[in-house]
C-alpha cells in the first residue's frame, strides 16, 4: 500500500469535515468500547493474563530465531512448506511463483492485514489472477477500491447506504436485486461469495498466532470465511509475519482470552482454527498443499530498539477503539495500513519517520490505549519517544521549537508563569466579550488557534487561573 502518511494534517482535516464518515463512525463508536468493558470485568484475573501475555511475547521476541526455526521444522514435519520473505516484493514473488500453474485462475483471500503492507492483491492481479476478498468488510472495500480503515473492522467507515449502492452497482449485472436491509445485504454477499469459495483454485489467509511447538497456525474469524478459504481450494497459503510466533498450545489459551475480549467484546470469537499441514492421506477434504510465507518486512529491524514493545501487538484494535483521535478522523487519515495509536507507533518505524512526521503528534497523551492494550504496550510512551527523536533529527517545525523554548523559560520561573497565565486568561475573556465571538460559553474562533476552532468550539476559560483560584481558596480557609 502506498504511504500517504506525510499528508496527515490534510487528510485528518478532510476527514473531520466528511459528513458520511461522521455518520458511520458515530454509529460504530461506543459499541466496541461498551461490550469490551462488560466481558473484561467478568474475568477476575484479566490483569494477570495481560502480564502473562506481555511476558510471553517479550520472551519470544528475545529468542525469536529459536522459536521461528522450531516453528519451521514443525510445519515441515506435518507436510507443509515454509517460505521466508524479507520484504514485500519477495512475498509477492513467492506467492505468484506458487500460483503460476496453468490450472490456477481464481484466488480467494481471507483477511490479512500483513498482505496490505505490500499490496499483495495488486501483485497477484498484475500476474493475471482473479483475487476475491471474502471477509465481508474486506469484500466491500475491495469493490469500492479502498483500503481498510480499521484492523478488525475494515469497512467501519462505510454506511449501510453506501454498501447498498455498491452492491447494486456490482451485482446487478448478475441478476441480483437492490438490497437495503442489513440481513439482505449479508445474504447477498453470502450467495455471491459462495460461488467464489467453491470455484477458487487457491486460498490465501493470514494467521493470528504461530505455535512453535506444533507448527500450527491459529486463525480467528467470526464469519467463517477464513475456513472456507483455507479448506475448499487445492492449495492453502498462509501469509503472516514473524512476530506472531508463541511457544506452545498452553500459551494460546491465555492469548485467546485476551484477544476476543479486547477486539470485539467476545469471550471467544466464533471460529478459532488451528491449521497443521495439508490434508492427510485418508482425509475426506482439505487442501493438498499447505504453504506458510513468513514475512519480516522491517520487523527484525525494530527488534532490540527502544520500540521493540510494539512487536508484542496482537492486532486487536482496542487502542484505536478507545482513541479520541481515531474515533474522530477514522483510519484512512493515517495514510497507511495501520491506524490509531498502534499505527502511529508502527508506521514511522516501517515506512521511515520522515514519511510520517505528524503521526506521533496524533495523540492527546490521554493514555486510554495503554490502559486497554491486552499486551501492555506503553503506546503513549513510544509516541513520546518518536517525538523526541523527531526533534533531535531537526524534523520539528521551527515555530514549534521556538514555542517550546519560550514555554520552557516561562515554566521554569514560577512568578513569570503565574503572571503570564493570568494575563492570558484575562485577555481571552476580554477578547470574548469585545468580539462577541462566543456563544453558550464557547469560542467559535480564536486567533492563532484556528486549527482547533475550525472543527470544534473552545470553552471560554474562567477569569482566574488554577493557581489563582487555589491561592484564593487557601486564603479563605
Amino acid at each position, binding site marked *: 500500500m502506498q504511504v500517504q502518511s506525510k499528508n496527515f494534517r490534510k487528510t485528518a482535516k478532510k476527514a473531520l469535515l466528511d459528513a458520511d464518515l461522521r455518520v458511520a463512525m458515530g454509529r460504530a463508536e461506543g459499541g466496541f468500547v461498551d461490550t469490551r468493558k462488560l466481558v473484561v470485568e467478568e474475568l477476575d484475573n484479566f490483569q494477570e493474563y495481560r502480564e502473562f501475555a506481555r511476558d510471553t511475547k517479550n520472551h519470544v521476541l528475545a529468542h525469536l530465531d529459536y522459536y521461528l526455526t522450531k516453528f519451521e521444522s514443525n510445519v515441515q514435519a506435518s507436510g507443509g512448506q515454509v517460505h521466508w520473505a524479507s520484504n514485500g516484493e519477495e512475498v509477492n514473488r513467492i506467492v505468484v511463483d506458487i500460483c503460476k500453474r496453468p490450472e490456477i485462475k481464481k484466488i480467494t483471500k481471507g483477511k490479512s492485514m500483513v498482505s496490505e503492507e505490500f499490496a499483495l492483491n495488486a501483485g497477484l492481479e498484475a500476474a493475471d489472477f482473479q483475487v476475491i476478498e471474502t471477509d465481508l468488510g474486506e469484500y466491500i472495500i475491495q469493490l469500492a477500491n479502498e483500503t481498510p480503515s480499521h484492523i478488525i*473492522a475494515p469497512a467501519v467507515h462505510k454506511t449501510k447506504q453506501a454498501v447498498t449502492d455498491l452492491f447494486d452497482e456490482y451485482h446487478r449485472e448478475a441478476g441480483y436485486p437492490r438490497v437495503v436491509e442489513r440481513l439482505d445485504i449479508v445474504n447477498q454477499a453470502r450467495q455471491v461469495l459462495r460461488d467464489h469459495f467453491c470455484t477458487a483454485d487457491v486460498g490465501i489467509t493470514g494467521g493470528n498466532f504461530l505455535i512453535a511447538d506444533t507448527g500450527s497456525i491459529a486463525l480467528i474469524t*467470526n464469519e467463517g470465511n477464513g475456513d472456507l478459504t483455507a479448506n475448499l481450494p487445492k492449495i492453502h497459503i498462509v501469509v503472516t509475519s514473524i512476530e506472531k510466533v508463541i511457544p506452545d498450545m498452553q500459551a494460546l489459551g491465555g492469548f485467546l482470552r485476551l484477544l476476543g475480549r479486547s477486539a470485539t467484546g*467476545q469471550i*471467544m470469537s466464533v471460529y478459532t482454527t488451528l491449521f497443521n499441514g495439508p490434508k492427510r492421506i485418508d482425509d475426506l477434504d482439505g487442501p493438498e498443499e499447505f504453504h506458510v510465507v513468513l514475512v519480516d518486512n522491517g520487523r527484525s529491524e525494530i527488534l532490540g530498539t527502544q520500540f521493540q514493545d510494539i512487536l508484542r501487538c496482537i492486532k486487536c484494535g482496542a487502542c484505536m477503539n478507545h482513541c479520541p483521535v481515531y474515533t474522530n478522523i477514522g483510519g484512512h487519515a493515517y495514510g497507511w495500513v495501520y491506524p490509531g495509536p498502534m499505527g502511529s507507533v508502527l508506521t514511522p518505524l516501517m515506512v521511515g519517520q520522515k514519511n510520517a512526521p505528524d503521526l506521533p503528534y496524533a495523540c492527546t497523551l490521554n493514555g486510554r490505549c495503554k490502559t486497554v492494550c491486552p499486551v501492555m504496550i506503553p503506546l503513549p510512551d513510544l509516541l513520546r519517544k518518536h517525538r523526541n527523536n523527531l526533534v533531535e533529527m531537526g524534523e520539528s517545525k521551527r515555530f514549534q521549537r521556538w514555542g517550546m523554548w519560550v514555554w520552557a523559560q516561562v515554566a521554569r520561573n514560577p512568578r513569570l508563569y503565574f503572571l503570564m497565565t493570568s494575563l492570558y486568561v484575562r485577555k481571552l475573556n476580554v477578547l470574548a466579550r469585545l468580539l462577541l465571538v462566543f456563544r453558550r460559553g464557547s469560542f467559535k474562533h480564536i486567533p492563532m488557534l484556528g486549527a482547533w476552532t475550525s472543527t470544534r468550539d473552545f470553552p471560554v476559560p474562567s477569569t482566574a487561573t488554577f493557581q489563582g483560584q487555589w491561592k484564593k481558596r487557601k486564603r479563605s480557609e
Partner: protein
Amino acid sequence: MHTRVQGTFEGVDSLQDVPLAAHRYLVGQSVSPEVVISPSPELTSINWKGLKVEFRVANRKDRSSVTMAFAGIAETGTLVMVSSKQSPINHHFLPEFNIAVLKQSKLVDCMENLWPLIGEHPRTINLITGPSKTADIEQTIVYGAHGPRALHVILVRSTC
C-alpha cells in the same frame, strides 16, 4: 455458555435419541429432514429412521449437516472438531444448519485441559463458538455470514 453465544442446545439420554432430536429440530426450523452426516463410527451405527441421510463430504447443495464433536469447552461454550477421515472439515462450514453431537463425558472445563487429549495435530482443529456472524455493516450483528446460520448442539448424557 453455548446459548449465550447464540447457539441452541438440548440434552438427550443416549446416542439412540439423537435422530429424533435432530428431526424435531430441523422440522422446527422449517427445513426438510435431509442431512449429510460425518462418517464417524458413533454416528454411522445409529438408526436414522425418519431422516434422509448420507455419509459423505458436504457440498454446497447440502442444507444441513450432523457432526460429532471431539470435545466441548465449558468455559466458553466451544465445540472442538478434529479433522480425520471420520470428520470432514466442510461439514462445519458449508451447510446452513449444523447439528453437532457432543458426549457429556467429553466436556472439559477449559482449553488448557483440552490440548493433552488431542495428541498429534490433524490438518485442522476447529474451535467453534456459536453460529457464523458478521458486524461489518455498521457494527450491527447479523448471523449466517458465510458459515452456518444456526448451530444446534445435542448433548448426549450417557457414557456408552
